[in-house]
């Protein structure tokens, strides 16, 4: 127990300066957190900003995001015994919980699901769907996204608006990287068709 405590103190100091072999270290942290909840702080410190930004992007309110973020970590802390490393990182598991918590928040409050996007997000969206579009086309993006199913929206959000790599998208959605690519480009094709049908051919 003493050794475990020493490991905890040492790791807590190291949280701010993660080494390249952090993945192995993360597995050790998860093992420790399963033994005692206080060791969960290591994972909390590592992922707090990442998860907060993910939630804030959707809720656009600092204090509500802090509450939802706290719920995400609480759920993770309670259910950590059920987490098993199967090639998917702990961050992806947390993101999955965050998606569920955000959706639950929207449902409970009767609010319309939303997402904040920056200029880069818009550029990336039009680069995939219809190159040459103006960047300031929030409403158009919103209308096109509205036409998609929930799982289709999710993959576009993760890949374009959250700017995640296909590997990470796959981890979050618990599918393979290749499957994530196939699914994503299928949705992009759908968006292209929708854009041409609804706006382009009718002269917008």
């Amino acid at each position, binding site marked *: 127990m003493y050794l475990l405590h020493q490991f905890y103190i040492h790791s807590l100091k190291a949280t701010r300066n993660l080494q390249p072999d952090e993945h192995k270290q993360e597995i050790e942290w998860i093992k420790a957190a399963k033994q005692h*909840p*206080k060791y969960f*702080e290591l994972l*909390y*410190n590592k992922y*707090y*900003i990442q998860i*907060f*930004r993910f939630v*804030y*992007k959707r809720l*656009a309110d*600092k*204090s509500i*995001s*802090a509450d939802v*973020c*706290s719920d995400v*970590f*609480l759920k993770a*802390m*309670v259910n950590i015994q059920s987490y098993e490393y199967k090639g998917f990182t702990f961050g992806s598991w947390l993101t999955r919980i965050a998606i569920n918590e955000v959706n639950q928040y929207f449902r409970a409050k009767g609010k*319309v*699901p*939303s*997402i*904040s*996007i*920056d200029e880069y*997000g818009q550029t990336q969206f039009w680069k995939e769907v219809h190159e040459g579009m103006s960047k300031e086309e*929030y*409403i158009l*993006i*919103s*209308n096109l*996204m*509205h036409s998609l199913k929930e799982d289709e*929206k999710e993959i576009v959000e993760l890949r374009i608006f959250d700017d995640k790599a296909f590997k990470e998208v796959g981890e979050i959605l618990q599918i393979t990287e290749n499957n994530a690519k196939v699914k994503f480009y299928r949705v992009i094709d759908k968006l292209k068709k929708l854009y041409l049908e609804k706006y382009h051919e009718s002269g917008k």
Partner: protein
Amino acid sequence: MNQENKYHIHKEEPISDEEIRATKDFKKLTYEYQKMTKPLVKTPLYKRHYRKILMTIILIAIVIWLIIEFG
């Protein structure tokens, strides 16, 4: 904007890492965890493992009272 739109996109308001760190509170999280996993209202003593001992003591007391009264 389309009135029936069930999806809203808005412009991102930047937030700094410092602002995010200010919302971190692991102590509160631990408290919430304990509240969730360990119920605040504990089981009364007589309903737990002392139950048998308590019943035995009560039984002995009744027997002693009976002996004193009618013995």
